[in-house]
């Protein structure tokens, strides 16, 4: 399946290669570089590139291209999903997945890649199994290892590999038993010029951080499970139980994991928590343009809208901007023409605004499209769909765990057309 893997950084250097079958020369990446040159943006490199003898399937994450070399027919999503899983694992192990982190931990990376694939077919991708085989590097462990001569590599087959719950290792012990669940919802929306919603939908996830001793069996029930329209589960969730009772019943993996992602049914109207008043004009013939933007909260159920960040790709004709934010800071990059305004918290009494003028290239004609405005924000302690967890119960262990549930609403791809 996967023949080789090349990691390519933003400047086009191959900084790591790994082969699972016979060695494929790195010159195969030339086809990739060609495609990269043709693409205007890094994101525009096509994920699947045919070459005379191989196929290159790549993903771009953290400004690193992970290029897999394939020799014969394979579902492309299989490879893409796997590559993303590799990135997730690196992130899990090293905290970040950057070129520097990978180079610093090249041995662990190699050991990981060796375990994750055998002959190009995924062998172990479950994080807890990998962590038993290869312990993540920490400063303490490195020191201990140098002194005692022990290694980072496990000698026994991880119990998870053979069990029916491969995602959980046995013998987990904590002094503080705690289970935290974050319900995070993202609003994807397109708002048109006049402020009416073209499309809006809510996607949510429940991320969990479970540190519980032994083999706890958890059930999580919702007040209003009907809201969940389409769900995808971590493999630990018992699907039958969900089908029958709409209860999430599972033996959790140890540590952080994504329990559930869901889509809120489109029948429900989506409350849009912010509105934007905008007036962006370019006048024909003059080298000046007006820029006027005001943000305000709406339908937030009394919760504050925080970490607001506005960004907009201004037309190419804009040379510079002279804007005045009522709060926060703004930057404009004259090269990429990207305007960002870090607003912070919206105060409903004093609405934040960004006003001023833009200078345009002299003599150039007026840009025919107004820029779209992308907004990011966060609202704590609220799930915009109204989803509420009813209760969380634990079976199978005697102790009383500490349980916590946090709600948050974020902007996903929130776009305002002007």
């Amino acid at each position, binding site marked *: *399946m996967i023949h080789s893997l090349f990691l390519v950084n933003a400047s086009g250097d191959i900084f790591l*290669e790994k*082969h699972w*079958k*016979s060695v494929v020369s790195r010159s195969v990446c030339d086809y990739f570089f060609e495609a990269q040159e043709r693409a*205007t*943006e890094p*994101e*525009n490199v*096509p*994920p*699947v590139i*045919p070459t005379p003898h191989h196929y290159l399937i790549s993903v771009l*994450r953290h400004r690193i291209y992970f290029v897999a070399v394939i020799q*014969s*027919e394979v*579902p*492309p*999503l*299989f490879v*893409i*999903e*796997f590559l993303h899983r590799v990135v997730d694992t690196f992130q899990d192990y090293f905290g970040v997945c950057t070129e520097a982190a990978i180079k610093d931990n*090249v*041995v662990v990376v*190699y*050991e990981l890649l*060796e375990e994750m694939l055998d*002959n190009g*077919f*995924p062998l172990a991708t479950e994080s807890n199994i990998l962590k038993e085989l290869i312990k993540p590097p920490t400063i303490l462990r490195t020191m201990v290892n140098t*002194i005692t001569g022990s*290694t*980072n*590599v496990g*000698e026994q*087959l991880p119990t998870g*590999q*053979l069990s029916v719950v*491969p995602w959980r290792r046995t013998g987990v012990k904590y002094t503080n038993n705690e289970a935290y669940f974050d319900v995070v919802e993202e609003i994807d929306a*397109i708002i*048109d010029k006049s402020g009416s919603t073209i*499309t809006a939908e809510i996607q949510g996830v429940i991320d969990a951080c479970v540190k519980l001793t032994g*083999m706890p069996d958890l059930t999580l029930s919702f007040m209003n499970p009907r809201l969940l329209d*389409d769900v*995808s589960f971590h*493999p630990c969730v018992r*699907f*039958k139980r969900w089908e029958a009772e709409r209860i999430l019943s599972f033996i959790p993996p140890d540590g952080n994991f994504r329990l559930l*992602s869901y*889509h809120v049914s489109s029948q429900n109207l989506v409350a849009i928590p912010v509105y934007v008043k905008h007036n962006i004009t370019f006048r024909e013939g003059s080298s000046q343009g007006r820029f006027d933007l005001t943000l305000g909260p709406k339908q937030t159920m009394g919760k504050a809208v925080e970490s607001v960040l506005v960004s907009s*790709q201004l*037309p190419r004709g804009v040379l510079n901007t002279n804007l005045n934010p009522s709060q926060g800071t703004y930057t404009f990059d004259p090269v990429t023409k990207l305007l960002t305004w870090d607003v912070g918290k919206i105060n409903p009494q004093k609405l934040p605004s960004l006003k001023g003028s833009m200078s345009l290239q002299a003599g150039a004609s007026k840009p*025919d*499209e107004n820029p*779209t405005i992308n907004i990011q924000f966060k609202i704590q302690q609220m799930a915009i769909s109204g989803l509420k967890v009813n209760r969380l119960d634990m*079976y199978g262990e*005697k102790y009383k765990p500490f349980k916590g549930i946090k709600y948050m609403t974020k902007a996903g*791809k929130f*776009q305002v057309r002007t």
Partner: protein
Amino acid sequence: MDGGFSSLRLEAVGAVRTALVSAENLQLTLKTELSQEEQALTHTSANSGPEETHRTGGIFSVLRNEDLKEMLESSKESLKLEAMKRIVGLIAKGKNASELFPAVVKNVASKNIELKKLVYVYLVRYAEEQQDLALLSISTFQRALKDPNQLIRASALRVLSSIRVPIIVPIMMLAIKEAATDLSPYVRKTSAHAIQKLYSLDPEQKEQLIEVIEKLLKDKSTLVAGSVVMAFEEVCPDRIDLIHKNYRKLCNLLVDVEEWGQVVIISMLTRYARTQFTSPWKEGATFDENNEKAFYDSEEEKKDQVEAKPYVMDPDHRLLLRNTKPLLQSRNTAVVMSVAQLYWHLAPKHEVSVVTKSLVRLLRSHREVQYIVLQNIATMSIQRKGMFEPYMKSFYVRSTDATHIKTLKLEILTNLANEANISTILREFQTYVKSQDKAFAAATIQAIGRCATNISEVTDTCLNGLVLLLSNRDETVVAESVVVIKKLLQMQPTQHCEIIKHMAKLFDNITVSMARASILWLIGEYCERVPKIAPDVLRKMAKSFTAEEDIVKLQTVNLAAKLYLTNSKQTKLLTQYILNLGKYDQNYDIRDRTRFIRQLIVPNEKSGALSKYARRILLAPKPAPVLESAFKDRDRFQLGTLSHSLNIKATGYLELSDWPAVAPDQSVRNVEVIEPVGSLPSLLLTYSVAVVHTYSDEFPFVCKSSDQTWTVFGFSESGSEDESDEKSSEESDKSSSESESEQKKKKKTKKAPQKKAKPTTVNIPTFGPVKSHELLHHMTGKGLSARYHFPRQPCLYQPNMVAVQVTLTNGSDHSLEEIHIGDRSPASLNLHCFNTIERLEPEASVTVSMGIDFSDSTQAANFQLCTKDDQFSVSIQPAVGELLMPSSMTEQDFCKEQGKLLGMNETSLSLLQRWSHWQFMAFTHVLLFASRFAGRTVSSGALVLVTAESRESSTALLTINTDKSIMASMLLRDLKQALAQA
């Protein structure tokens, strides 16, 4: 500068030295390392420039091969490890480290597991280049293949099979065969991977490898299933016959297989199903009409036959669809996609839409995932608009999407357009046309053109919109509009001479050659409708002819010719001028065209009959172009494949066959073992008992314990297994009538094979009367009574639970509500409650099943049975036999396992009782040779092996081998009691 650096470095050396001295004081002897490091430092300071050391970061990093070699040969483990780490670093960077091979290979037998692993990495990388030296390591692997640690066995096989040295093929073959029968499923999984490696190294081993695959396909472990199917796909994808017997098992295992295996199995089963089942699409009412016609047309003769009998879906076909459906909820996008394609290719048309939601969900995932999923949706949406229409808004384009995502979304929106939604879509397109991404804007214009041709109601609206775009400032937009308008006008030119005039006016401002050429063609084609403008345009073109692009020149010649034919008075000279220019053009295409046109239109003595028809040739009515999707022909490839994504047939692509007209024999999938079809792994559902025996007898033997009976039969028959089953059930009936106290049977059947060499394994599901126990008496339960029994089947909820069935009866005169399970003790008790029973009418009873994890102890499980108003404490105590599940294994495995469970783990009891004569006879008869029974505890899966052996004339020895010693003694006691009663 350099001097400065080296002095710095000297300082560094000094610092390290002092640090090490202090380390020595701390009694951390790093003596050897000290010298090494010093060496390294002096090397770097002497040889390399400052940048190099800076780049690589550490002070140790620039080590030469000699130093590495020296480190590898040192006696210190840590030093070796350090060296190997650096070598791996070199390999990762793609540097050549092959000359270290001899030094590295020496460490292959190292005790340090990390060092060993790194050596493996090195070996696999360079063995191909250094075949002779690589052979030195082989014996180490052969030894490791026998290691008691399964991880070591597996990794030895992994490396051994990864060394691509043809000489060791026989060794590999042997190792694979051995590993395929290993007790550890993990090792068996590795052997499945090794099959593919060996096959790619030496395809001549195919036949032997197929044998191993066949064996592994029978494996019931979920761990192995995915890998062996992968091997099957790689080595012998055409041997469909190997799948028959395993088809149902694979379907049932699917949910529990790891996600990557699921993808592989699903795609294999898709292919399988297309060869084995008849088409479910034949009587689909929601069928795409065109397709249906085409289908029947091509198979006219079969039509009658097909319609004669209504379509009934093969239950196996249904099984596959049913068991894959839950996987749509998988977090793995590849799994979701593979289920989607399975439904697309196999499900009846009205069922395909279940995949829609899940596919739309995947659009939230990473960019690359979106790309592939959108491609597949594009293909699907051509044939089945209805599937995605409700989700149209999910395909709206955002300015932040990558260009290829945008164009795919556009494609889908265009496919989805119909009379009802076209206005919404066009409004959306209007915003796209203004996009800053001009390539995308151009694609939108094409999309508008397609909508206009497909939906006649909006053609005019679209055309007007496009004409407005002609005044757009951006050239690519204008050019694209011209091209699209040209195509649209061609379909209905009569009413549109205004547009042509407008375009002619714009002509001067347009510089994109394709657009200019399109306008020229339009004017030429409809020159009779714009008689005044056309010659004027030609005049302008004559002026600028030499500066034009080739494509424009060709169209100019074309226009000139057409005008010459229709309006020769005004344009004769102009045409001749242009033809003269063309005659001396650099491009031979243009020279060629000019010569051809001249011969055709200018009458002279040489010109033949053709010039008479010049008008009819050049001004013939031309069919309008069909604007169609780029995804139109993609459906020739299986969805979700690489070939589909690239629209080229990829290497190794396996065609999806057409449905067979007549279904092949269904019975090939029948397995001898009676296998209840369920959604759980079949290995758990088959309540199988393995008996390994080489003995024949005709005596039924019954032994009873307090609550359970084991019946052991012997036959001296030579018939088929089916016969033996039949017989055994007869026998069991007989014996159950004989012994009135008998409540339930867990049967162990002995079969006498003709040949002694082959141990037989017989799997029999349990049946027979069950003993139920009281859980709650109706007096204490205020009318509610409950009884329970153990169905002795694997628990549906969790494999480590014991299944319990509870029958609840309402003996009161009013209905009971909300019967459920309340608190439990001990609190850690893990049990799977039954769903709350909302209402139980008087005199009604209901049977519910629950699962209890007894953790392999006979300790009672206490819990509360609650109704709406009351709570009753009840408890269930299992007999030790209920905590065991039979497990099947071969005689060899049995002995091997028994060998591991000696000493502390062995409990035995010799029986010397005053038996009644026939009982004794029967017993010794049965136990004339060793009888062996294997089982596993339900909760922890510990093996329990029971052996009964006859000793001398009057004693028999019962031995139980298990590491659960308490259980062993209890079981022994029960057995003894049972035998005494018999």
